């Protein structure tokens, strides 16, 4: 994972933080994991899948089968649809969360704009965790519904604004 700035003493006397602790701390700050204890998030972080991407490499393409959400550990990722850039995401941002709920194809392209480290959180791992810890699973499902509902509201607003502009 990305190197943390650390002092000489820190490097000498402190053991290097395992990659999943960094992943856990990034996910813990997202609305996904609101009100879920860190010890549970770390269990999930341990089964997540870190991947490295070169600049301009596709993380996924429109139409690909989605297996889960992705969190940016380092670098920048551009989300686009039919050539229109929808968002540019940085460290700590996540994308592709629809695939955590639906077994559907990707609805946009995600391209690494610089060398990137991304960690994937896959739907089967989430399902397994929910079966093991149903209480926290219910919490996470509600959080996920909140995230998706907010995105839907945002999309509706954009659509309404677009229509107004056309009518006007």
């Amino acid at each position, binding site marked *: 994972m990305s190197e943390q700035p650390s002092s000489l003493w820190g490097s000498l006397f402190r053991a290097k933080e395992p990659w999943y602790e960094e992943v856990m701390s990034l996910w813990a700050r997202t609305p996904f994991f609101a009100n879920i204890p860190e010890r549970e998030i770390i269990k999930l972080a341990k*089964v997540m*899948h870190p*991947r490295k*991407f070169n600049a301009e*490499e*596709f*993380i*996924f*393409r*429109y*139409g*690909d*089968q*989605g*297996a*889960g959400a992705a969190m940016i550990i380092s670098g920048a990722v551009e989300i686009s649809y*039919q050539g229109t850039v929808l968002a540019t995401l940085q460290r700590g941002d996540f994308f592709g969360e629809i695939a955590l709920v639906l077994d559907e*194809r*990707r609805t946009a*392209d995600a391209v690494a704009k610089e060398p990137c480290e991304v960690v*994937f959180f*896959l739907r*089967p791992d989430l399902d*397994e965790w929910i*079966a*093991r*810890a149903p209480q926290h699973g219910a919490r996470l499902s509600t959080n996920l519904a909140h995230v998706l509902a907010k995105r839907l509201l945002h999309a509706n607003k954009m659509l309404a604004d677009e229509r107004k502009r056309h009518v006007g």
Partner: protein
Amino acid sequence: MWASVIVHPVSRALTLYLLLLVVVVVVSLVFKPVLLPLAASFILYAVLYPMVAKLQGNGFSDSWSITLVLLLLTIFIIGSVVLLFPLLLEQIQELQTRLPLMWQKLSAFVDAFGKALRASMGVEFDTEKVIKRTLENIQSTGASIVVSSAGTMMQVAMALFLVPLITFFLLRDYRNMRNRFMGWLPNAGFELGWLIYHAVARQLQQYLRGVMLQSSIIAVFASIGFYLIGVDMAFLFGVLTGLFNLIPYIGPPLAIIPPLLVSLGGDEVTTLMMVGIPVVVLAAQLLDNLVIVPTLIANTVNLHPLVVLLGIIIFGALFGFIGMLIAIPFMAVSNIIFASLVFGLQGSDAPQ
């Protein structure tokens, strides 16, 4: 034209599937000496992992969860060996001591049948020749079993040592090893690879658990049925019926033969037994098809009955009894991999 055939999702999926098959064959050949203990360990892993996961979910550490589950398994195996193995062994020994007498009786039966055939229809039936040939076949099979038994004993001893050891390490480290292995997938195929892996693993686990439970229920049902109609060695034949039940369509009729032959060669042959044995196997089949399959096995394999039947015959001809056992899971897994590859590769070509 050829270019479009080569880049077509079906041809790409077929190429990838064949490559995967080659890898599986090569790995199987490399691991051939330990293939049986490895397969047994993976089956145990599939059965035991949900229990380990449940304990981990309840706050037990990884090592404690695995140790507890393996301890329970050991107690279960020792209990089964202490309670059931002597009974099974006793019945096998009884079968061995009664075999010569049974053959004599069977010879007499075949002889009488031949005479009746000659008297009623004028058909010549050389009883002596038929029995001699059958006995020769049995003797040569017996000899080959004796010759190979030394090797088999070594394999069994090795398996007894290896299976618990491999199962322990699989329960502890398999997921990490799998993640590392899947990490070798290229970025473009990473998500599709995981989707296919999970679909295959889920189906295999469901199939294995379902089939093991199905065999056990059929074995218990048939044992009770055989015992009630007075068949000797009812437990042994019940277990055999459970095992034969693993082979769809062909297995159940085969399960009728051993208890019927032994009963024919027994001291007293009753009509109840002769009619009862096929009825018990048939009733077990009804229970299987009407209750067990819809509740336990349905949806675990989505294959056409004709494909299953042909697959079992072809795999049986190629790899014998083991081939018949692995035919269904192999075809089901191939079906998932191929269909998922075609579907996944079509997505990448979706118009933008």
